[in-house]
């Protein structure tokens, strides 16, 4: 059920000829008590799924905006357990699929099997671990499979053809196409070959291909969505929510319709 919810959401978007939009929020940033409200707001604004960041003290794949959000969340006392408990509360009446993005260590400390089990119980559909390359997947795949959680792989601009093939073949949930060489955060533009890169991924990927990292304007959303199945937007959403600018978030999500 959990993993399938994500697949269904992408199929629904495709059926009506639209593109997917997956916003990222940092759990606990702005208070854990507001988490379910934020999720509802993003769902009502038209998000296809939501990426929920669990804060980690040393987020090496993240730029300044998400680093700062993680520090705010940790200072507010956010823990893995508290986030899962909060999310589980509205499990039954929540339509939008949730995907957790975090680093390996908080999960390792929680216990991989226990974490997968708690995710299933909380209605989480997938997991993104930016510090877990193909070579080390053995640490989590069994537990995730058992509990119906999709392991969402990231493919990079630097990935070799051989690695792209392997990642695309294993893709489940969606294939996360990292669109910049670097960390998360706003960018002015993307490399020239980005369109061809995304199209090539889409051709071989089993799961939908979503572009992410550096996507921060309606123009980016439109530009990248034309080559793949949609986008993930992180830093811009985190920044707007932190400033209390919900309108900007809604406008950004709405831009997917024009894509």
């Amino acid at each position, binding site marked *: 059920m959990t993993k399938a919810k994500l697949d269904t959401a992408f199929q629904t978007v495709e059926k009506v000829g639209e593109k997917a939009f997956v916003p990222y929020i940092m759990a606990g940033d702005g208070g854990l008590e507001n988490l379910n409200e934020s999720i509802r707001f993003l769902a009502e604004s038209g998000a296809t799924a939501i990426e929920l960041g669990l804060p980690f003290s040393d987020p090496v794949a993240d730029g300044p905006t998400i680093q700062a959000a993680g520090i705010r969340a940790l200072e507010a006392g956010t823990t*893995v357990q508290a986030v899962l408990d909060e999310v589980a509360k509205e499990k039954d009446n929540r339509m939008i699929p949730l995907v957790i993005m975090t680093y390996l260590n908080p999960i390792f400390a*929680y216990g991989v099997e226990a974490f997968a089990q708690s995710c299933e119980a909380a209605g989480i559909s997938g997991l993104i671990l930016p*510090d877990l390359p193909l070579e080390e997947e053995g640490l989590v795949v069994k537990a995730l499979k058992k509990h119906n959680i999709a392991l969402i792989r990231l493919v990079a601009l630097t990935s070799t053809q051989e690695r792209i093939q392997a990642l695309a073949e294993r893709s489940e949930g969606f294939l996360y196409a990292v669109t910049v060489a670097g*960390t998360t955060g706003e960018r002015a533009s993307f490399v020239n070959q980005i369109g061809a890169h995304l199209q090539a991924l889409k051709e071989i990927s089993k799961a939908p291909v979503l572009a992410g990292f550096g996507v921060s304007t309606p123009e980016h959303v439109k530009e990248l969505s034309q080559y793949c199945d949609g986008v993930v937007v992180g830093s811009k959403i985190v920044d707007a929510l932190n400033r209390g600018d919900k309108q900007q978030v809604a406008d950004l999500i709405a831009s997917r319709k024009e894509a």
Partner: protein
Amino acid sequence: MATYPTETGHYGDFGGRFVPETLMPAILELEKAFKEAKEDEGFQEEMRYYLKQYVGRETPLYYAERLSKHLDGPRIYLKREDLNHTGAHKINNTIGQALLTQRMGKKKVVAETGAGQHGVATATVSALLGLECIIFMGKEDVRRQALNVYRMELLGAQVVSVDQGNGTLKDAVNEAMRYWTANVEDTHYIFGTAAGPHPFPQIVRDFQRIIGDETRKQVIEAEGKLPEAVVACVGGGSNAIGMFYPFVDDLDVKMYGVEAGGKGLLSGMHAASLTEGKAGILHGSLSYLLQNEDGQVQEPHSISAGLDYPGVGPEHSYLKDAGRVTYDAITDEEALEAVRMLSRTEGIIPALESAHAVAYCKKLAPVMNKEDVLVVCLSGRGDKDVNTIREAHETGGDLHD
């Protein structure tokens, strides 16, 4: 000789390469380049040339007679890594990795630094080989080690002060990794310690094992036998693994790794990952780690910038669990006392990092025989720490706050 890591970079349960996909191709490229270089006599010849003519190896194994008498214990020898060019063991590794950088056709290097020794050693070899060099250093360390910052700049490196976290080594590694991720196509990351993703722990060990290889030969020449014990300080663990590795199969040689006990293990303000931590993943490898119940990495504390790190190399974790090396901790205060003791008995001012190993001699002396031989890795000289030491003695102890 023990044959680890495995092909996949694991040391028992530890090690691995937990890095973003963006870095994986560079990690694999580095692994290949390193394997080829190891087999290439030309590369080995070049290494030997620079280590002898530029670094000044081999370093002496010095019999510290007055220290031995002072402690009324075993015959203590100091492996004088402090006499290397740039004043510490760090250059053994940076020379090797800079030559690897050239082999891979890259023109730029990035590195992290804690005490500044690795940064200086990286800036030095960058100047030597004409590489562009950028160094990330925690804000607190920039303050503690101002002279080393200036040294690096003098050598033509760009030093970036890192504000995040406590502004120490861990934060510098985070930023260096982020920089590497964004510039991986033309930049090599000269990792300074025997930690990080595979193949770094192996590369650093193999470039640092010259410490133990020389020591083994020298101690046999001087004493006609292997030592009863060897001691080295452990932050990430590069000088220690370099000293220990050639002795791993000599089971009669006891080995002691000394971590930073900071204000005492009970205070929670220390950097003793092996003694007090539990297995976790930081900076690309699975190893002992200072962390809370929720898997958040804890801020370490040590008066010594080079030991102020919450993680440790995976091979040390392996050696700990295998029971081959005993790991223990020395406090800031004990290390400061050891600086004074070695300065006054031998006329050698040790780096604060190395002073942790010297301090441990005081603990071992009473339980060893007079005819026993104890080798201490004196990983670096204390010139860089003189200000810190003076402030500490003036304020009667801590100066981290």
